[in-house]
């Protein structure tokens, strides 16, 4: 199945969405995105990490070292209150954008 390039600036939103279901480590986030998108998105998994650090610096997520399911040390990321708010606003934006683009493109 051909994969689609991720739209610029949407990775943040995807990460926030994944984390809204509970804390997760980097690998887990990548897996969740792949599962939820049914493997349709091509994400360079490495680019998750700069994104995560940036969001942490902005205060949208918190991080904590913990034990992963395969008993290895892993850094777990959790959504903060500010992150939840950010997710809501991005979701709204996305809806507006989708509707607008859909209207412009019209039915096939």
């Amino acid at each position, binding site marked *: 199945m051909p994969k689609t390039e991720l739209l610029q600036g949407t990775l943040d939103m995807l990460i926030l969405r994944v984390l809204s279901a509970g804390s997760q*480590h*980097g*690998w887990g986030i*990548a897996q969740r995105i792949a599962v939820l998108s049914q493997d349709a998105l091509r994400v*360079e*998994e*490495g*680019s998750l*990490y*700069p994104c995560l*650090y*940036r969001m*942490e*610096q902005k*205060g949208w997520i918190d991080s904590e070292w913990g034990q992963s399911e395969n008993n*290895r*040390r*892993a*850094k777990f990321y959790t959504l903060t209150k500010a992150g939840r708010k950010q997710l809501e606003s991005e979701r709204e934006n996305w809806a507006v954008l989708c509707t607008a683009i859909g209207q412009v493109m019209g039915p096939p």
Partner: protein
Amino acid sequence: MRLWREIRFRFRALFCKRALEAEMAEEISEHLARLTDAGLAAGLSPKEARLAALKQFGGVEQIKETARDQRGVAAVEHIVADFGYGLRQLRKAPGFAVIAILTVAIGIGATTAIFSVVNAVVLRPLAYPYPGQLVTLAAAGPPDFLLRRVTPAVYFELRRSARRFQSFTAWENSFANVTGLAYAQRRLVRSVTPNYLAMHGVSPLLGRGFQPGDTAPGAHGVAILGYEFWLTQFGAQAGAVGRTLEVNGQPCTVIGVMPRGFPIGSAVDRRQRELAERIQKHQRFHEAVPTPDEGEDRKRRQCRPGGGQNHVPEDSPPSAPFHARGFLQFHRDVAEKLAQQEHAERARRRRENQRQRRVDEPPLQDPVHRHQHCLLILRHKAVTKPKRDLPPALPAAHTPPTRPGPALRHNSAKNSCGVS
């Protein structure tokens, strides 16, 4: 809260860089290991699995670099790195380093010196109100010739003819023996014309300023004390006003005290004082006489009387050496003659054109006496810190003296001698 978080992160990025890097490396290698494991599980060889993992992950170094740039301290890190590189380069080429450092040092030194001059001359204003309206007139002479005095004759002539100036004042610094205190002292004395203070827009802290009547024939000599002199010699007591001192043997009544910070001896004065001391040591002064310009010189020659033992002969060049001490006496007869002429001229003019003539000066009484009764400001050389209970200086040197500070009012209220 947000700002605090940002500060905390940047602080960590700067000072706990190794820990951050280690965490990042651990996370990424863990992720790669998992990707490789997934590849192995899918039946790839270890090498193929590793390559596939790297491909899926993306360029490890680029990603790390992106994360580093995001921390927001890249600029600081680059500066530190550049600085270290610069130091290493300097150590590698010591000769170049020495020359470069010397160049910078000399450059800074020269700039500082030039700025000091500009600051003193241009930027820092004189300690009088309206310093922009004050000009100094000096006779032409070599640039380092600091005793470029204007003779009394020239002074009177200038005052008579120069219409562009509101007023003229003349002053002269000298050393005088001051007696009548606990012990005899040698002090810097500035002799001034009565309008000196009025022209500078400054009034005394205590007592009164000079008045035209002070120069009347037969009038008693009067003096205004410098602040430091008042402080050290009179203990800052208001009773100083009215005391009589002897200046070079001539009695002199103290009529006032200048406010603190009133510049009696500026940098130029200091140099003049040194020069004056040198002159006193050698008794004779061999520098050239200031050369007035042609017109003034001609006028001076015209009004020079024929006789007089102290006179420069008619045919001698204006640059003939003169005795610096007793300068005023030297020109006294010239001044007398000039003043008589001036007197006559002014009387005539007044008669002729009374309406146009602006009466801005009191009628001359006896110009010779005007100079004989030189008005004095005494100044102490050492600057002493005022004691706590002493009246402070006037608020600022720029403050117009018409508004005396609270201390001044307080003082004058306390003491019987009034402020004029």
